[in-house]
């Protein structure tokens, strides 16, 4: 067979031989790309350490699921499906891109393993992949350019609109696909004209359609199209490669690493400095993140990897109520800072303080650490650890809102944020009616018990929340638990103390409680406060197993130890509000729902934002003291969501949710139509008492 088509390698482009030109372009392109990447890696070399080289098999499995499998993408269905197709197309076409580059150097270079039958099959697949990517690019361009979903908008205070960058990249991808198809189609058209056996083009693919359109085009034109489309593809390909690290499309390169190195342990907070034990912290000169270089390399990688999709901020309750926080821009501002301070040309610029620079104090204090952003991010980026690190930096400088200083001081001197006396910690048990039914032991060395009920500050001291404490104690009695409380020896669990960045205070609370718990010799711990649950389970070490009361109730209901009466009212429609520290941070979603469904006759509906998309009530612990700038309260939005779902009773399982939702109901003007009750209180009301007195 006589080859009548001149290939790019054999052709002459003006005065240059194709194979020379197409050896130089990749060399220049790769050199340029390597230079840019070296500049991008520079700040990572100045960063704080981060230990992410463990648990290889778990990390690989998660990479398969979240990176290759794009697990979180369909949570936003249209965008997610488009992205999955684009991603699969990119992965498929990467082989073609490499082989095309090789073809320019030598016609016979083939990617290993892609000769023969595999190659022909691959060619069919990649034609369809290219066609699908092309279609997705068109739809994506219409979404970005015409429909403009709200979550892509850039509020004025965060800078300029990002649409042009998105459209530019979509354009580059379209050019890549079109030129590759034209390259294929023009050759196939010539082969058809000559009656030669041609590489089969996948029917109905872009290349196939182009060939059909070109089949009667004069041969010299086709030859030129063949060579020009190759040149365009080659130039666009390397331009695209070098453009990737300039903005949000950096994720094309970094996403695999970002997902592989993602945080594995939910509900935890990173140490002040990786590799420095708690007992050596006094030697650490500066705490937390004050300048960009204080971030860990993984956190910097997060900044690079952000695809600017806006899902975090779309889910963020602080953003929803108009607090000055949008997680997306925590990242974008840091990325832009990095690009500015580590420029492609010239020396790195002097670093500037982040607070008062790219971030404001209120922005960083606005976060409730609910975790909605992290749950949503398709690239598994972390926000809470960064927020906590920035807060640690502010605490270290003494830069703490006045509203938080009193509770912090009280936590230091009294072990609770309210400044209440330790000796009054067990007063909630002294209620007369309650004492007749249930005598709560204080595990002070004289008394012992199998189970510790860890009450925590708000339930111990707040008049309203003490009722949750008493309900919990009655449930424990009804379930036949041998239990007690620490009483005055119990200090605040410190969940928010750590998350507000006061690490040393947290550690002193933790050490005190851990000693008291160990001294009590209990075999397990139960709490009705998800914040205490999270701290004891994830932040403390070496404690007996910890359970939330909802888990215990669910188990005892199943075992038949707790029996529940029928609901009294048929009017009541219940909905369950997932507390962040029970749901998202600890994955307890089903037990509380199971308990509700075990109450005969109980009607339950779900809010549209439930389970791992639950909407934070406003935040617990120290967040109750902070005075945020906001347009409305999260609790108000949440109460309205319950009303929209058709519920008139919100059941929660956290005293802080109770505070915020109770307030939210009042402010929303729903007092007549909506109530809120704690799961423990609800169960306590319905429990079948087996004592003869009340039988």
């Amino acid at each position: 067979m006589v080859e009548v088509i001149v290939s790019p390698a054999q052709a002459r482009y003006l005065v240059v031989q194709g194979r020379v030109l197409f050896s130089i372009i990749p060399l220049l392109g790769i050199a340029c790309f390597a230079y840019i990447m070296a500049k991008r890696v520079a700040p990572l070399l100045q960063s704080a350490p981060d230990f992410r080289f463990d648990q290889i098999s778990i990390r690989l499995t998660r990479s398969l699921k979240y990176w290759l499998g794009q697990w979180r993408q369909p949570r936003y269905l249209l965008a997610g499906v488009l992205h999955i197709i684009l991603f699969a197309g990119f992965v498929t076409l990467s082989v073609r891109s490499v082989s095309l580059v090789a073809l320019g150097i030598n016609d016979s270079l083939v990617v290993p393993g892609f000769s023969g039958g595999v190659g022909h099959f691959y060619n069919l697949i990649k034609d369809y992949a290219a066609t699908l990517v092309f279609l997705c690019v068109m739809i994506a361009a219409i979404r970005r350019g015409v429909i403009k979903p709200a979550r892509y908008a850039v509020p004025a205070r965060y800078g300029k609109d990002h649409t042009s960058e998105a459209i530019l990249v979509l354009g580059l991808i379209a050019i890549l696909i079109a030129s590759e198809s034209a390259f294929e189609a023009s050759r196939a058209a010539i082969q058809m004209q000559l009656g030669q056996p041609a590489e089969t083009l996948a029917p109905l693919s872009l290349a196939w359609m182009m060939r059909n359109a070109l089949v009667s085009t004069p041969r010299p034109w086709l030859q030129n199209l063949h060579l020009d489309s190759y040149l365009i593809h080659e130039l666009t390909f390397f331009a695209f490669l070098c453009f990737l690290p300039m903005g949000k499309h950096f994720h094309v390169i970094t996403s695999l690493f970002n997902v592989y190195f993602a945080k594995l342990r939910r509900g935890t907070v990173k140490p002040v400095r990786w590799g420095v034990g708690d007992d050596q912290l006094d030697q650490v000169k500066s705490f937390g993140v004050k300048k960009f270089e204080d971030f860990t390399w993984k956190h910097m990688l997060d900044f690079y990897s952000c695809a600017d999709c806006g899902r975090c901020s779309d889910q963020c309750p602080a953003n929803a109520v108009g607090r000055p926080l949008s997680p997306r821009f925590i990242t974008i501002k840091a990325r832009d800072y990095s690009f500015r301070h580590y420029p492609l040309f010239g020396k790195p610029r002097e670093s500037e303080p982040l607070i008062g620079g790219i971030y404001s104090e209120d922005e960083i204090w606005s976060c409730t650490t609910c975790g909605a952003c992290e749950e949503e991010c398709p690239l598994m980026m972390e926000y809470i650890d960064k927020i906590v690190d920035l807060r640690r930096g502010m605490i270290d400088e003494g830069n703490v809102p006045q509203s938080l200083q009193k509770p912090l001081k009280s936590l230091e001197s009294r072990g609770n944020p309210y400044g209440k006396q330790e000796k009054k910690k067990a007063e909630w048990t002294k209620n007369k009616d309650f004492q007749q039914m249930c005598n709560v032991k204080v595990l002070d060395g004289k008394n012992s018990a199998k189970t510790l009920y860890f009450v925590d500050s708000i339930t111990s001291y707040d008049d309203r929340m003490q009722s949750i404490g008493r309900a919990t104690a009655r449930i424990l009695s009804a379930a036949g638990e041998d239990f007690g409380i620490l009483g005055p020896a119990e200090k605040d669990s410190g969940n928010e103390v750590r998350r507000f960045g006061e690490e040393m205070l947290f550690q002193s609370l933790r050490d005190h409680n851990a000693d008291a718990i160990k001294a009590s010799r209990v075999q397990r711990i139960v709490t009705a406060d998800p914040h205490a649950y999270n701290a004891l389970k994830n932040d403390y070490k070496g404690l007996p197993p910890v359970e939330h009361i909802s888990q215990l109730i669910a188990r005892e209901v199943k075992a038949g130890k707790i029996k529940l009466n029928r609901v009294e009212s048929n009017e009541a429609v219940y909905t369950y509000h997932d507390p962040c520290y029970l749901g998202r941070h600890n994955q307890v979603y089903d037990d509380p729902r199971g308990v509700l469904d075990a109450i005969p006759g109980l009607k339950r509906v779900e809010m549209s934002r439930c389970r791992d998309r639950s909407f934070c009530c406003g935040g617990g612990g120290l967040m109750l003291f902070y005075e945020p700038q906001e347009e409305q309260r999260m609790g108000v939005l949440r109460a309205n969501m319950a009303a929209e779902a058709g519920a008139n009773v919100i059941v929660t399982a956290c005293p802080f949710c109770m505070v915020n939702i109770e307030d939210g109901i009042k402010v929303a003007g729903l007092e007549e139509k909506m109530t809120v009750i704690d799961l423990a209180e609800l169960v306590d009301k319905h429990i079948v008492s087996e004592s003869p007195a009340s039988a």
Partner: protein
Amino acid sequence: MEILVCARRVPDTSENEIQLNSAGNDIERDDLVYSVNEWDNYAVEEAIQIVDRLGGNVTVVTVGNEDDEEILRREMAMGAKHGVLISDEAFDGSDGRGLATILAAFVKKGKYDLVLTGVQAEAGEAQVGGMLAAMLDYPFASLVNSIEAFDGKLKVSREIEGGNREMNEIDLPCVLSIQTGINEPRYVGIRGIRQVASVEIPSYGASDLSLDASAVGEAAAKVKRVDYFVPPMAKGAEMLQGDREEIASKVIELIKAKGGLK
């Protein structure tokens, strides 16, 4: 500028339930937690901010005993360079004048451009600042809520009736009593205090300050506390009944009746 701040350790009213003891001559002191007197904390913050702008050092002094070192360390963790404890059994039971006498003796030993006190202490009588200035023959401004330095003088504003401000120029050296709200004091955590835990805190007694022991202490006190009592509960508050509009109109009537509305 060398600044001296006089500070005091007091029972924290937000973290204690203050009750009289059974004898009725003091408050119940078991199970109290203490902190820096709030006004003094603002004074220290202000001193640190002035020094940050103009250079110099902040020294914090307190009259008390070893337990009071705790607040000196807290203020040093904030940024005060030195902490000084003035402690002597002879000082026990001093009245406001006695305290001012002790502090004046200490001020004379050093060389301070500016002496700050809090307007008052939670357990005190708001006497020391003014008396200290008189004993030193320094100019004095009370209730200061902003300080600006220029040409070796200070421009200070004082809080006057109705939240208004009065601007004054005052020569140095001088004594100022600082009002809360003049700034936002920085936070001090356990970590900050630990970092200054091993700093030596000098202690001065009566002889170090060349003080005549008979001029201070309980014997010299001319103001003596004779009793504490809880004022009798006044008639209970009147709870207005009715719906929102009824309550509002009743409130208006009541205010009118008392001459609050015309």
